[in-house]
Structure formats: structure tokens, C-alpha cells
């Protein structure tokens, strides 16, 4: 299964101050472990939300909001994409991650829909009931693919 692993932001990450060389090195070692274990698909650090923008939707309305954003605990400072056997394995890996921040911090593990679950969504009898929803999902997926490509 795939999991997206989010490193949640803190006041430190939002301040834009770079991590210490020691912290970088520890995280580098952890990433190397993930890599040689064959589970690491992606690893990215995000700039502080001072560099970010949000687009708020309300019916036909679109409002662009500039960062930084206030609710620090809800923000993401970085993420991995992992391919693991189950959620327990993901938790075991996260526990051995060095604390990504100088102070208390949090990492959140979110499983992705897998192929079988998507197939189930596309089963004709289910698709009939959820037709609209599946089409919306596919459209969203296509848009997402177009954006990320």
C-alpha cells in the first residue's frame, strides 16, 4: 500500500530558518535507510507558507490568498510517499525518523486509495449508484495528473 507521510509544520519550520547541519545529516541517514529498504517513492521538503498561495472556492468565486497562514499545526512542512506492506510498517518507520523539528512536532500517515479500491469504485453495479461520484473522482484525478505532470 501507498502512504503519504506528512511532516506537520511548527513555528520553527514556518520561520523559514534552515535546519541545523546535524538535523539535515540525521534526516539524510533516515532517507538512505528508506531508500535501501526499497519503500521510498518520493521525499520533498516544502518552503514555509510565507511563499505559499491559497485559492479559496465559493461557487463560481475564486479568491487568491497570500501566505503566511496562521494555523501552524494544520500546515505541512514536507512529505514522503512510501510503498509499504501495511500501516504498521509505516508506523514503525515513522517512529525511527529523527524528530524533524527542534521542538515537539508531529508526523501524519495517510493511506492512499489503492488500485483494488478504485476498481471497486468502478464496478458497474456500484458505478451506477455512485456514477456521478466516480466521474467526479476521475475528473479530479485527470486534473490532478495534468497539474502534477
Amino acid at each position: 500500500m501507498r502512504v503519504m507521510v506528512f511532516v506537520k509544520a511548527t513555528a520553527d519550520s514556518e520561520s523559514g530558518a534552515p535546519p541545523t547541519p546535524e538535523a539535515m545529516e540525521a534526516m539524510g541517514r533516515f532517507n538512505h535507510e528508506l531508500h535501501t529498504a526499497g519503500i521510498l517513492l518520493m521525499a520533498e521538503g516544502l518552503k514555509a507558507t510565507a511563499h505559499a498561495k491559497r485559492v479559496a472556492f465559493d461557487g463560481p468565486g475564486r479568491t487568491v490568498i497570500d501566505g503566511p497562514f496562521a494555523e501552524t499545526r494544520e500546515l505541512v512542512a514536507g512529505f514522503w510517499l512510501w510503498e509499504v506492506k501495511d500501516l504498521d510498517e509505516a508506523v514503525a518507520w515513522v517512529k525511527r525518523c529523527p524528530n524533524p523539528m527542534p521542538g515537539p512536532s508531529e508526523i501524519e500517515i495517510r493511506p492512499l486509495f489503492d488500485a483494488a479500491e478504485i476498481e471497486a469504485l468502478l464496478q458497474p453495479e456500484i458505478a451506477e449508484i455512485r456514477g456521478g461520484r466516480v466521474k467526479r473522482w476521475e475528473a479530479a484525478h485527470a486534473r490532478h495528473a495534468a497539474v502534477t505532470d
Partner: protein
Amino acid sequence: MRDTRQSPIEAIVPQRACLPHASGGQGFMGAGETRQAIEAVFRIERARLIAGLARMVRDVGLAEELAQDALVVALTEWPRTGVPAKPGAWLMTAARRRAIDWIRRARMRARIHGEIAQDLDDAFDTVEAVDAAMDDDLGDELLGLIFTSCHPVLPAEARTALTLRVIGGLTTDEIARAFLCNEATIAQRIVRAKKTIAKAGLSFEVPRGAERAARLASVLEVVYLVFNEGYAATQGEDLVRPGLCLEAQRLGRMLAGLMPGDGEVFGLLALMEIQASRLKARIGPDGALIALTQQNRARWDHVLIRRGLAALARAETLGREGPYALQAAIAACHARARSAEDTDWPSIAALYDRLRTVMPSPVIDLARAVAHSMAFGPEAGLTLLDDLSGAAALRNYAPLPAARGDFLFRCGRLAEARAEFEAAAKLTCNAREAAFLLARAGACG
């Protein structure tokens, strides 16, 4: 270090006092770990643990048992102490104590008293030494175990079963289900493989020099075999078994991490990542196979494509155009095309021309004929197939009549095409592939 030598009973249960971070107020993870959580930690460490132990005791079966014993110790200790900061080193220390105990008894039985002290001194590393080894050398030991479990001294099916068991950590039941075998057959295959390795006195070292290239080919072959059994299931109802693909990709990524300087390792990884990117798009909602040119490319896995292209770039930088890198380059041509019409068929045809020189095979020639038919027209494909019709290896090979049927269909020779599709449907063992071919026969009117 000498003072830590214990009675045999103490050697079985490692003492918390000499293990790092296992106790004390600042417990790394806190107590109350569940069995499930501990087993998850163990699964992460298992292959490296077995690798280190196998080199020590020269026996994969025993190494597996010792690793399992270490898990039992962890299951009694960790719920109280929490998971130690270096669980791999902790488990290795626990397992080593059991191993030393075992060696001691074995040596006693063999009555080679003179050697005992020396050997045990060598085996009795400090926790710090084990800890350091877990950080560095065990990568090498893991690689050594992979090379051993893929050793040409073993029959091909034993190599895959053993590799999935000791490196992939699959249970015999999982392997049996993946290969649609009886569990007892797989279990026996693995036991025999372990005995063969012990009897042959293999060293568990990573081979060097000229031997390395030949042995590496065997490793890559095992990984690709696992992948292919998942990607193009040769037996049963399912067209694909994605679990096997994932297992092979994981092995491929591990190898790339352990052998960062080898082009073909990256070639194979690139090939698997790119092929796997199409897994979701290859099967329609009705479970039928969808041809590459018909697939919805928005459903391709673009993370895997990106990873595959990066691995291919790395393979090409490392030089020497091997068979896997060339096949990956072909797969990459498809991956780069935004639509089927955009496919760069002349490049693919040229890559097949090169591939057949490094990997001569009638199956490659067949694929080359398909590429040429797409680049230069179905007649070009038919001409190349004529040269192939005598190949013994293709006599009962369903893709040959399937390809000829396709070329004839595109030339407008429908009656001949229909006969070829029907012949192909009779030859395939895969129920769903047969249905696909019969549908094409039906479309010939």
C-alpha cells in the same frame, strides 16, 4: 568485553543493562508496545538480521531460526521497555548470543575443543560493534545473502522462492498463493534450497571480479522473473498479480540502493517501474486486458514513470547498454508519449534492432517485428515474421499468431487474420487473454 561472557542460560535472554536505550526514564518510544507493532519493527530488520547471522553460522535455515528466536525475546522485553533506539542492533545482539550458544554446542559435539575459544572471541562483538555494523557493513551482508539466495547452484524456481522468503519476508503460504502452488511444495523447495547452499559451502559473500557479472545476471533474472509472474501471469484467471510486481520493485529498489554503481541494476529497476506504471490501466472494468495503445494514459502511475525515467537516466550515465536498460529505454518511449499516436515507433524499432544484438532471442525478434510494423507498416512486420516462422521456441507461442493476426488485420486480410487470432486463443493458458484474442477474431467479421 570478556567479562560479558555469560552462562548459556543468560546467553539466551540478553540482559537489558548491556543494551542501548532499552531502559531508563527517557525511553525512546515508551513501553506498552503491542505485538503487532513489534512484529512490524521485526519485519523491517528481518532480512538484514538473517544476512548477518547467515554469514556467521553459514546456514540460512539456522539464521532464520535465530532471527525468529530474537523476535521471541523482543516480544517478551519490548512491551515493558519500549522499542530500543537501534532495534536492529538489539535484535542482532540477542540472536548472536543464541548463535554463539549454538556454535558452542556444535563444536562440543564435533569435539574440536582447541578452536572454541578463538572462534567465540571473534563472534562475541560488543553491542557498539554490532551497532556500527548495522549502520555500515550489513548492507554488504544483505547483498551477500541476495547473491546467495539467487545462486546458480539452485534451480530457478528455488531461487525465487528462497529470495521471496528470506529477503522479501513473504511466508511460504504467501509465496504458494502467488505462484499458485501448494504450500507444501514451496516449503519443501525452500528447505531443499537451504540444504543445497549448506552442502555447497557457499560463503555468503558478494562475489567479486569476473564471477560478479555472471552472478549479478542471476540475481536480476530472479527479480525480473518475480516481476513478470505478477505483470503477465502465465497461469490462472487473473491477468496480473500486482503484489508480486510490488515485491519485485521493492527488491529492485533495494539492489539499486546497495549497488549504486551498476548500470543494469538501474536498467532493470527502470524497466519494472515503467511497466508497473501501467498496471492500473492495463485491465478494463470487466477484467479484460487493454492493449498499450488503447490504455487511458491518465490512469498511468506518473510517480512510477518519473522514477523509471530517473533510473533509466542513471543506467545510461553508468554506461554499457545492457538488455534491461535497452528494454527500459523502449518502455520509456511509450511512457513519454502523451497519446498512442505520439509514440516514437521508429526509435522503438531502432532500440529493438540493438536489443537483439545483446540479447538474441526469437521473442525479442517477435517484438521487433511488431515495432517495425508500427513504424513502417504491417507489411514490414509480416516480412520480419516470415523469417521467424521456423523458430522452434515460438512453435506454440500464442503471441506469434496474435501478432500475425494483427498485421494481417491491418493489411485488410481479415479471413487470414481471424484464423491467426483463433489459433492464438487456443495456445494461451490465460483465460482472460484467450477472451481478448477471441474478441479480436470476432471483430474480423
